[in-house]
């Protein structure tokens, strides 16, 4: 994407098409020239697509880029100007320092790590456990339990917040602590279904062979099933992690002390704290987006595969 942007590419496309047409009637081309010609024609037909892709990428990325650029602006750089100033004239990291000095962003980050890791680990464990008998055992009440779980998928989570709030305050006494955010997210019918789907694809012979060899159900589950479905486990885990990381409404109801907040809750507090200090808000947003983006880049393959697989599940 280093050359002259969409316009330059469009011009290049026209040029390539023209030269390909000129080359057409020339007979007796050598192999190398043929190949070069083919490559050029390929480029010509693709240039249009690159324009579309780049325009779309620009629309997608621009709000983030604008945040990043604004967060680097110094006091002398205008926030509002006509036309808007894109590149900071006096770049500085002072806005980041100000945010770090006024709000415990690192603590938010730490809390988010604790919550998302705990939720992911335990949720995957609980879901994988529940999925095994639903996929591979016959027992009384199986259908009944299955349909009960299925029904909970339809219910909007927000519906449960009033009673869950009262439970948190009156029964579990974990209001304003991290467990209040962790516990209600530990079981998800959706994850149970995805894991059930994965287990069903494991041949029964394999399980029966292990049982004949004297392995108990727990060992079958832990030593045979779980290793086989590792790709599904990874996809479910990544989904759960990102969802938990970005969860806002319930954590915002539960976490009120600055020392207890997760990143999204802290970020919303930041908006109130810096009200119209756009540079600091931009710095805060940038700081919270970068870690999850890095995480996404690392696990991207599994994420996309899991998302694609979910539809069939």
């Amino acid at each position, binding site marked *: 994407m280093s050359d002259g942007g969409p316009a330059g590419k469009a011009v290049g496309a026209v040029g390539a098409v023209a030269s390909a047409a000129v080359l057409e009637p020339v007979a007796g081309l050598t192999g190398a020239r043929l190949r070069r010609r083919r490559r050029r024609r390929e480029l010509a037909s693709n240039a249009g697509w690159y324009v579309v892709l780049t325009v779309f990428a620009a629309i997608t990325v621009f709000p983030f880029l604008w945040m990043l650029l604004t967060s680097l602006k110094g006091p002398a750089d205008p926030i509002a100007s006509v036309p808007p100033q894109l590149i900071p004239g006096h770049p500085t990291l002072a806005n980041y320092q100000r945010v770090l000095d006024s709000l415990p962003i690192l603590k938010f980050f730490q809390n988010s790590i604790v919550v998302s890791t705990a939720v992911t680990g335990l949720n995957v464990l609980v879901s994988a*456990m529940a999925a095994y008998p639903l996929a591979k055992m016959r027992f009384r009440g199986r259908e009944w339990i299955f349909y009960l779980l299925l029904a909970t998928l339809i219910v909007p989570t*927000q519906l449960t917040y009033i009673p869950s709030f009262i439970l948190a305050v009156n029964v579990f006494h974990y209001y304003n602590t991290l467990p209040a955010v962790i516990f209600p997210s530990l079981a998800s019918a959706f994850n149970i279904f995805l894991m059930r789907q994965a287990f069903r694809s494991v041949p029964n012979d394999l399980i029966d062979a292990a049982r004949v060899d004297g392995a108990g159900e727990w060992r079958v589950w832990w030593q045979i099933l779980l290793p086989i479905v590792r790709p599904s486990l990874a996809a479910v885990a990544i989904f759960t992690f990102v969802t938990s990381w*970005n969860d806002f*409404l319930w954590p915002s109801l539960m976490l009120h002390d600055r020392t207890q907040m997760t990143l999204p809750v802290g970020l919303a507090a930041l908006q109130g704290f810096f009200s119209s200090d756009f540079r600091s808000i931009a710095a805060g947003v940038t700081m*919270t987006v970068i870690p999850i983006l890095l995480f996404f880049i690392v696990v991207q393959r599994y994420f996309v595969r899991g998302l694609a697989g979910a539809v069939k599940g």
Partner: protein
Amino acid sequence: MTRRFKATPYLFLLPAVALIGVFVVYPILAVFYYSFTDYDIVRPPVWVGLDNFRRLLGDGTFWLALTHSFVYLLVTPTIIALSICLAIVVNRKLRGIHIFRALYFVPAVSGSIAIGLSWRWLFDRNGFINGILQSLGVIDTPIQWLAEPGLVLPIAMLLTIWAGIGYYSVIFLAGLQNIPEELYDAARIDGASDLQKHWHVSLPGLRPQIVFVAVISSLAALKVFDEIYVLTSRSGGILDSGVTMVFYLWKQAFTLQHAGYAAAIAIVLLGITLAFSIVNVRLLERQEGDR
């Protein structure tokens, strides 16, 4: 095959069933009960029968919220159409296509609060959008985008669409890649143009994905909250112009302490969601029948 193991299946299921029982099943039953009570979370609930529901009928803000939530459903067809277009565009072997695909996915992982804040400032009175429009001479004075009652909801919807396209197009991309190449070849031999090929081959082939995305994104649209919360700085917009069902539920329950009344809103929301799910299941069944 499992006669020997009596308790084992139940032990495997126990943690999940207990958690879902406490955090999903019990709250649903409780919310039904609260909807028939006057309850402020602090003092014990007082039974008032159908009073909350009667009040809802005459509550203008409730009807406004209901209307807004239905209007919000317009994001679903828009997202489906645009995501399919994007999936078709990225479904070709181009150099660097993986980088583009990853870029389009960025809004889906960044979190609604972060992207909501960035949009909040794009559309600020002193924001980028006004700056560009002014420098192009389209407008003379800055527009108060988010203080304009008619604009809050459309901007929130635009945000939802923008954030959703990359995510949903991955699903459609997987669907496209499952469509046998021969179908496209056959269409080409029949003299179909590119557009006709996609209309007659891609669209029918993507039907399972379309149903899935329709279900997921319409349920998400009915539940929208974070975008409204951030874009309107917790206010719901001037004259409640951005208030949706879940936002109104949140406001009644957690800022006004009208838990009983909010529970009644929750029951209406549940009813709508159930109706939607039944329609969706019907669609799915019809789809199974087609095969």
